[in-house]
């Protein structure tokens, strides 16, 4: 499979969030705005790429029976690096994302890719797999964050899209809005998939 096909696949068909429903906690919790969604997505991408690379390099060294604990240690190391790096450089974003930075360690996408891909493939393929999966995840978080931010506050990436005297639907930046937005995005994607299949 060539690189372009793989990229498209990880964005739409095998997208971790909308296709496989993995990593829902950070997806729903941190997407109160497009910027937060983007930040969370990129932090996860960094951990995913790094852990995929290291696990691929060590794939012949790690004994099969202790592979899961070993993967967890590798992932936890990179999560700690991101946690401290963000605290030092992006303090405000780190404060907003809060608990969900250390929780990247239990994001099933990362352990899933380590087990299903990086432990069986070479360095370059694992790097690309981590990068594409991470970008697919970031893409979903960005879209969900944008929907919630625009409907909930009328702003998008700091720009005001709605005149100030219009009222916005505040519930979309609160907890229920997270579930509802993702629910309706999934409905839309199902509908599109059905139309495409029907047209064939």
């Amino acid at each position, binding site marked *: 499979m060539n690189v372009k096909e793989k990229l498209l696949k990880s964005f739409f068909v095998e997208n971790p969030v909308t296709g496989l429903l993995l990593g*829902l906690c950070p997806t729903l919790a941190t997407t109160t705005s497009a910027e937060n969604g983007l930040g969370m997505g990129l932090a996860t991408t960094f951990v995913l790429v790094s852990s995929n690379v290291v696990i691929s390099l060590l794939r012949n060294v790690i004994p099969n029976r202790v592979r899961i604990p070993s993967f967890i240690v590798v992932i936890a190391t990179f999560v700690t690096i991101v946690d401290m790096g963000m605290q030092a450089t992006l303090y405000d974003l780190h404060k907003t994302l809060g608990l969900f930075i250390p*929780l990247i*360690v239990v994001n099933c996408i990362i352990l899933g890719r380590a087990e299903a891909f990086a432990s069986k493939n070479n360095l370059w393929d694992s790097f690309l797999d981590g990068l594409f999966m991470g970008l697919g995840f970031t893409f979903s978080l960005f879209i969900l964050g944008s929907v919630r931010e625009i409907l909930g506050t009328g702003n998008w990436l700091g720009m005001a899209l709605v005149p100030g005297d219009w009222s916005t639907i505040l519930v979309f930046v609160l907890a229920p809005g*997270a579930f509802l937005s993702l629910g309706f995005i999934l*409905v839309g994607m199902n509908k599109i998939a059905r139309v495409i299949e029907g047209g064939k």
Partner: protein
Amino acid sequence: MTDLALIIVSAVFVNNVIFSRFLGLCPYFGVSKKLDTAIGMSMAVIFVLTLAGTITYIIQTYLLVPLNIGYLQTIAFILIIASLVQFVEIVMKKVAPTLYRGLGIFLPLITTNCAILGISILSVQFKYDLIETIIFSFGSALGFGLALIIFSSVREALDTREIPKAFVGAPIAMIVAGILAMAFMGFSGMVK
């Protein structure tokens, strides 16, 4: 005493793990199709979360803080939780085989339940003492169970209803969760 009661009410209703903290969503959507499995999962989470909260508190206070290695918190906690789950599984198989048959299949899944790690880290951040940590972990797990059991009852009822084809499966589950979250918002402001 009232402090402890407030911690419980806050953890179960006001700051519910699912609807307000967004922790443990994978098992929440994964094992909520049937009421029986939801009850089994809730029991397993209540048991493991209370235990994990207590042990991580002890490790944090008597090992990580005195040795000044707080930065190893994430790695230490996740390893403790993973081995704790394994340990509980082995002990339970030997000591309480009936209970093991009931909860057994849910135990391995709990390691990747982010509610366990999340609540352990939160009780350190909130600077709770030992008793408060135990109550907080237990209350949060109870809140998870409550949310899961309500949700699975609704999903069982949905099975027999006619819903538009594009909504079947995950989308309708999300929308049900959204409406439940709105109901739980009614509790907000009751306690901090």
